[in-house]
């Protein structure tokens, strides 16, 4: 006999919980759903586009009645639950249906607040909440002329825009002087008002409604100051109130909302609540992202997993009136202890403000140019220190307009415009997937369209498309993102657990942290393997089955399944004998392509896997070893010729490069790691776009960190200047070790430094001399185990033989 789960409220939050629950435990409950509306579950946040005539009702349905049927869910529509009998665990509806429950989920949502002024109950006075309201508005637009929207907030303005698009003359009445004062400051609100006025919406500001005038139907609105305007339709959008009456009548403790704890339970542990009807840690929410986070947590407990906790949400808001870009997040007003950076360009219609406290972003308002909203929101959620990038902060991440896509005004793009240059996904495809497949998150768009799933440089564009398509309140991923769907722990938490609980194997980690899959996935296993071998170089065994194929085969897999081979050339210097060896190997094994790499090495492409050990054996004989061009490891140290030949060179950069490469080769890192040494400030080795770059100057060496080319070019930050070669080596080893110990798997140094801040790295490497020496010592210690040529092991010592020969050949 299955337990019975009853859901009151067939809206987005409740049904999202059911969907999450079914994904976790499809057969745990007999489920019954009561919905007060006539329709099955639809996407309420898309009501504005329906009103504006940009979408139809059918396009915003999430789950039709067949969906419920196919899953054996009993659905009652038009069926308002009027009573909860907690003693007998039974709910009853107005029309006499009753259902027993073992667990109850309340998701009754909220309703628009109707001002209790005289005339508020006249025909033609409505809220903006459901399909019925939208129908009423569309119908009114056919027969009447003048609409008045009371309330200049997000919902009110979207309603006003929709009614305008339906052909009505629209006046927005706002009690204050600032539109959307919960999201905007006065400067941004002025720009918004100007833009909406140009579209034809009229505003009455600072007006408090005293009375709705009319006899049989609304005829006008009168204000406290005596002014009066005519109206055939009045939409009240002055706020929402959580629907708590039902919960209250059942004796559940309510304040503004139904009070729940971090596991979404009310004061009765059998009764859960999610969505706009709840109050969690004194907060109520009216945006979709928090509802989904609540749903995830609640489903986790209903599925009897019992570990998830909801800790509240940071929210960001976008107004999606087509053609108006606005973004707002967090505390955008600030106080005497915070400060702000502002950019204002009225002619371009652009306004940006960021509020900063203790070197961290507390809030932001963007108008006209919202490209960087997602980035600011991420910095805010992660509490990243920004003092080192403060001077550039307002100019944005420069994330867009790099390789792969030139433009950034996503709203203005044609449907055929390519968004994801890696996978060739255009705007129309993404928008279509979002609407037709009912996608809400970046991860879902990635899974369905592949956009932003390769190099990730178009992530900002895809997030904008989500925001644009979903309307009002798309919000980015939650603050503490689990490292993959197999766990609810973040990278940093997993790493801390490995260190503090002395976990030394992947099964031990998975057991200790209650992994939800038997052996992880292709995303978490390589990360765990790296964390283990970098934390416990002596105690942890390198698990090859958890390594990506390139690191297992010590060569780069190509699109046809063949491999490429790149031997190390120390500091980019080679000899006639080495070149002869390479030429002989290419001839002997008929390697189709030989190519020079950007890192001053030679690449042999098109080697079959079975041939690899033979190729390596021949290369080994000529003194050539693995270049690790396939690994999350030290790749190359690029050098210029330096003092030995160059008439400008001030130091021996080539030798410095060779020495650095000899010290660092073979070490596994969170991501690939590139170095370069230039012999003078002309910097011919391009050291300032490397993870660790060294530039010789007359008085010593400049050390630069955190650069990279590629998707998003980032120039290094200057770490410090040192005098001696020994110092270069020590600082280099210490920097690498800090990166190895603290960066997340698959973080290059650039995003890592942007997250922790250059000041932190300087403090650890430059200011803390003892700490630096200790880091360097730990690096050298791990290197004693790492510096063994993997090619020689496999070519001559029989390591991993099974990797390279077929199990069997059939005749």
């Amino acid at each position, binding site marked *: 006999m299955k337990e019975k789960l009853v859901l009151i409220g067939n809206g987005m939050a409740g049904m999202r919980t059911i969907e999450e629950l079914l994904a976790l435990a499809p057969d745990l409950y007999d489920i019954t759903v009561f919905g007060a509306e006539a329709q099955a579950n639809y996407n309420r946040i898309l009501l504005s586009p329906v009103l504006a005539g940009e979408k139809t009702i059918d396009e915003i349905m999430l789950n039709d009645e067949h969906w419920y*049927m*196919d899953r*054996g869910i*009993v659905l009652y529509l038009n069926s308002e639950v009027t009573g909860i009998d907690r003693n007998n665990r039974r709910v009853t509806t107005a029309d006499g249906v009753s259902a027993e429950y073992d667990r109850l989920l309340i998701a009754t949502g909220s309703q628009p607040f109707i001002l209790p002024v005289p005339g508020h109950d006249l025909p033609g006075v409505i809220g903006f909440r459901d399909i019925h309201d939208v129908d009423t508005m569309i119908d009114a637009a056919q027969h009447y002329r003048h609409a008045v929207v009371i309330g200049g907030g997000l919902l009110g303005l979207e309603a006003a825009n929709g009614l305008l698009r339906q052909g009505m003359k629209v006046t927005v009445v706002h009690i204050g002087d600032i539109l959307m004062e919960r999201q905007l400051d006065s400067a941004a609100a002025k720009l918004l008002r100007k833009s909406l006025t140009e579209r034809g919406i009229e505003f009455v500001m600072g007006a408090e409604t005293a009375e709705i005038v009319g006899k049989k139907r609304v005829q006008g609105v009168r204000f406290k100051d005596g002014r009066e305007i005519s109206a055939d339709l009045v939409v009240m959008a002055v706020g929402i109130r959580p629907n708590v009456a039902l919960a209250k009548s059942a004796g559940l403790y309510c304040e503004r909302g139904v009070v729940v704890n971090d596991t979404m339970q009310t004061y009765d542990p059998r009764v859960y609540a999610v969505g706009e009807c709840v109050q969690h840690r004194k907060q109520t929410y009216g945006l979709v992202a928090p509802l989904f986070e609540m749903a995830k947590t609640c489903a986790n407990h209903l599925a009897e997993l019992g570990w998830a906790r909801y800790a509240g949400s940071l929210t960001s808001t976008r107004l999606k009136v087509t053609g108006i870009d606005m973004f707002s997040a967090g505390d955008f007003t600030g106080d005497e202890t915070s400060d702000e950076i502002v950019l204002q360009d009225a002619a371009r219609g652009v306004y940006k403000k960021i509020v900063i406290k203790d070197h961290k972003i507390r809030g932001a308002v963007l108008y006209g140019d919202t490209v960087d909203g997602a980035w600011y929101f991420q910095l805010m959620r992660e509490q990243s220190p920004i003092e080192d990038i403060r001077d550039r902060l307002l100019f944005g991440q420069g994330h867009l307009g790099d390789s792969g896509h030139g433009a950034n005004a996503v709203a203005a793009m044609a449907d055929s415009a390519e968004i994801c240059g890696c996978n060739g996904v255009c705007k129309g495809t993404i928008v279509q997937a979002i609407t037709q*497949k009912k996608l809400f998150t970046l991860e879902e768009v990635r*899974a*369905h369209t*592949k956009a932003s*799933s*390769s190099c990730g440089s178009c992530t900002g564009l895809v997030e904008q498309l989500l925001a644009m398509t979903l309307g009002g309140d798309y919000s980015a991923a939650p603050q503490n993102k689990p490292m993959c769907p197999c766990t609810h722990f973040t990278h940093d938490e997993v790493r801390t657990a490995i260190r503090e609980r002395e976990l030394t194997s992947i099964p031990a980690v998975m057991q200790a942290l209650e992994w939800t*899959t*038997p*052996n*992880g*996935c*292709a995303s978490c*296993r*390589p990360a765990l393997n790296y964390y283990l071998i970098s934390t416990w170089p002596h105690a942890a065994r390198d698990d*090859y*089955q*958890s390594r*990506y*194929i390139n690191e297992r*085969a010590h060569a780069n*897999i190509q*699109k046809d*399944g063949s491999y490429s081979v790149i031997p190390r050339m120390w500091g980019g210097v080679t000899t006639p004998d080495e070149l002869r060896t390479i030429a002989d190997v290419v001839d002997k094994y008929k390697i189709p392509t030989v190519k020079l790499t950007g890192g001053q090495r030679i690449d042999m492409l098109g080697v079959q896997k079975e041939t690899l050990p033979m190729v390596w054996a021949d290369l080994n004989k000529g003194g050539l070893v693995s270049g690790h061009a396939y690994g999350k490891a030290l790749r190359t140290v690029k050098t210029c010729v330096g003092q030995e030949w160059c008439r400008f060179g001030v130091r021996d950069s080539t030798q410095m490069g060779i020495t650095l490469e000899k010290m660092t080769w073979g070490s596994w890192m969170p991501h690939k790691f590139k170095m370069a040494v230039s012999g003078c400030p002309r910097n011919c080795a391009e050291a300032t776009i490397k993870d660790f770059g060294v530039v010789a100057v007359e008085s010593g060496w400049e050390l630069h960190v955190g650069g990279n080319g590629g998707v998003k070019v980032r120039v290094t930050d200057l770490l410090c200047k040192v005098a001696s070669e020994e110092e270069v080596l020590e600082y280099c080893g210490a920097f690498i070790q800090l990166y190895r110990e603290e960066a997340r798997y698959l973080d290059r140094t650039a995003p890592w430094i942007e997250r922790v801040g250059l000041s932190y790295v300087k403090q650890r490497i430059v200011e803390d001399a003892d700490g630096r020496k200790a880091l360097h010592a730990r690096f050298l210690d791990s290197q004693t185990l790492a510096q063994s040529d993997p090619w020689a092991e496999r070519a001559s010592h029989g390591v991993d033989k*099974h990797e390279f020969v*077929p*199990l*069997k*050949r*059939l*005749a």
Partner: protein
Amino acid sequence: MPTKPNIKLVKTPMTAAADIKHTPPAGAWIEVGRLDDIPRLGARVVCAPDGDIAVFRAADDHVFALRDQCPHRGGPLSQGIVHGHKVTCPLHNWNIDLQSGTALAPDVGCAGVYSTRVENGVVFLYTAPLPSADCSGSSE
């Protein structure tokens, strides 16, 4: 509560008709090696005249065999990371179910499936692919 008709049953006559026209390739059970020759959570390749077959060993020692070609762009599945009864293609991270050969949603596609069995630590493979009921039917 009405339930959805099982679509697979509807297709049976079609498959039978197709079988008359194209006789399925004759296969045979052959020994391919010892279970211990395949690393746990790993795979080995059996080279066959009409293309490689990937033989996988899951953590629970279940053995599976698929055509060594991802339905997406032909990537060698034998080189992927094995987890649960799934493998992730090394080229573009499609996840393929080892039992059915089908790509996990939202991706759509199917790699040919071969029967395997293990007796006394020895792995046997049936050299003709299974009639691919799951492959021809859309997973939608």
